[in-house]
C-alpha cells in the first residue's frame, strides 16, 4: 500500500516502501543472528583460502536430512576448524583449534570429532605417527597430555583419525591442541604434512542447546 494509506492488517499508518524494506531486512538479520545464537555478525580474522574450503567441504559429511532434533531448542551443526599451526619443530607439529562462540561452553555437546590431515609420502613407505591430545591444565596455564593415538600411514593422501572423549571435551571447552610426532626411521624431510589446499582440520558434529534441556529435565 502507498505511504499514508492504512495498513490492511492492523489499520495503523503504513510505512513507505523503502522504510518497510529496511525494517524487513533488519528483521531478517536479527532473526538469523538470534537463531545462530550470535549477538552480532562475525568479523573474519583468519580468512580461509577457497582451495582449503573446497577440499574440506568435500569431506564434510552432510547432517542426515530430517535429522533435526525433535526439540527446536536443540540444534545440531557440523563444524570444520582449520588448524593454526602452533610451535612446530622438525620432530613434531603442533595444531591448535579454537572454537569460541557467543554461547557458553556448557551448552554445546560434541557428538563426534575427527582429525583430517593430508600426508605426502615417498612410495612404498610406512610412516608411524603419534597423535598426542594436549589439554589446558586446571588453572588454564599449561598444556598437559590427556591421551595419545598411534597411527600407521602407508599411503599419500587424506587420513582421518576419530578423536575420543578427551579431545571432544577439550573441543567443547573451545580449545583443542594436537601434537603430531612422527615415530620410526622415515626421514622427516621426505614427508610433507598439509599445504595451503590441504590444511589439516577437525570436523565435528556438535549439538547446541541440548545441555539446558537435559539440565531442565
Amino acid at each position, binding site marked *: 500500500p502507498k505511504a499514508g494509506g492504512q495498513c490492511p492488517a492492523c489499520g495503523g499508518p503504513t510505512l513507505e516502501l523503502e522504510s518497510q524494506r529496511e525494517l524487513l*531486512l533488519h528483521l531478517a538479520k536479527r532473526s538469523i543472528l538470534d537463531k545462530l545464537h550470535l549477538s552480532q555478525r562475525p568479523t573474519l580474522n583468519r580468512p580461509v583460502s577457497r582451495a582449503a574450503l573446497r577440499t574440506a567441504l568435500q569431506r564434510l559429511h552432510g*547432517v542426515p536430512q530430517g535429522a533435526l532434533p525433535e526439540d527446536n531448542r536443540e540444534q545440531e*551443526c557440523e*563444524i570444520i576448524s582449520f588448524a593454526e599451526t602452533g610451535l612446530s619443530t622438525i620432530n613434531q607439529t603442533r595444531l591448535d583449534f579454537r*572454537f569460541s562462540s557467543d554461547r557458553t561452553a556448557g551448552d554445546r555437546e560434541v557428538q563426534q570429532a575427527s582429525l583430517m590431515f593430508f600426508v605426502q609420502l615417498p612410495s612404498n613407505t610406512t610412516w608411524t605417527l603419534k597423535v598426542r591430545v594436549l589439554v589446558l591444565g586446571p588453572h588454564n596455564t599449561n598444556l598437559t597430555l590427556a591421551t595419545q593415538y598411534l597411527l600407521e600411514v602407508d599411503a599419500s593422501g587424506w587420513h582421518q583419525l576419530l578423536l575420543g572423549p578427551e579431545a571432544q571435551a577439550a573441543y567443547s571447552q573451545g580449545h583443542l591442541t594436537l601434537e603430531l610426532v612422527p615415530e620410526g626411521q622415515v626421514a622427516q624431510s621426505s614427508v610433507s604434512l598439509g599445504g595451503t589446499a590441504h590444511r589439516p582440520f577437525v570436523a565435528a558434529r556438535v549439538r547446541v542447546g541440548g545441555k539446558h534441556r537435559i539440565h531442565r529435565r
Partner: protein
Amino acid sequence: GIDCQEGSRMCCRQEFFVDFREIGWHDWIIQPEGYAMNFCIGQCPLHVAGMPGIAASFHTAVLNLLKANTAAGTAGGGSCCVPTARRPLSLLYYDRDSNIVKTDIPDMVVEACGCS
C-alpha cells in the same frame, strides 16, 4: 495458504527474498546466497477465522463457535494472519574463529499463512 497478489487485502503470504550480498553478509555466509524470509499480511475477519490453507476442520469448528457465541452475544477477540507452515534454512557460514559451520535453522522460511 494463499500468496499475496497486487492489492490483496485478505490474509496471504508476501514473498520477501533477502540477498546476503545486498546486506553485506556474503563474506561470512558461504551458502546459500540469500533466503526467502516471506511474511504474513492481510485481514482476518471473523467469518474466515481458522481459514483453511491447511486447517479446514479448524475453520468449521470456529464457525460453529461463532454461531453459538453470536446467539449468546458477540464473540470476543480477533483473528490474526499468522504463519501456518514453515521450513528450516540450511546455512554454511564462518564463525568468528573462521571455523566453517553447517547447520539447519528450524522454522526460518514461512511457507503458508492462515488466520488464527
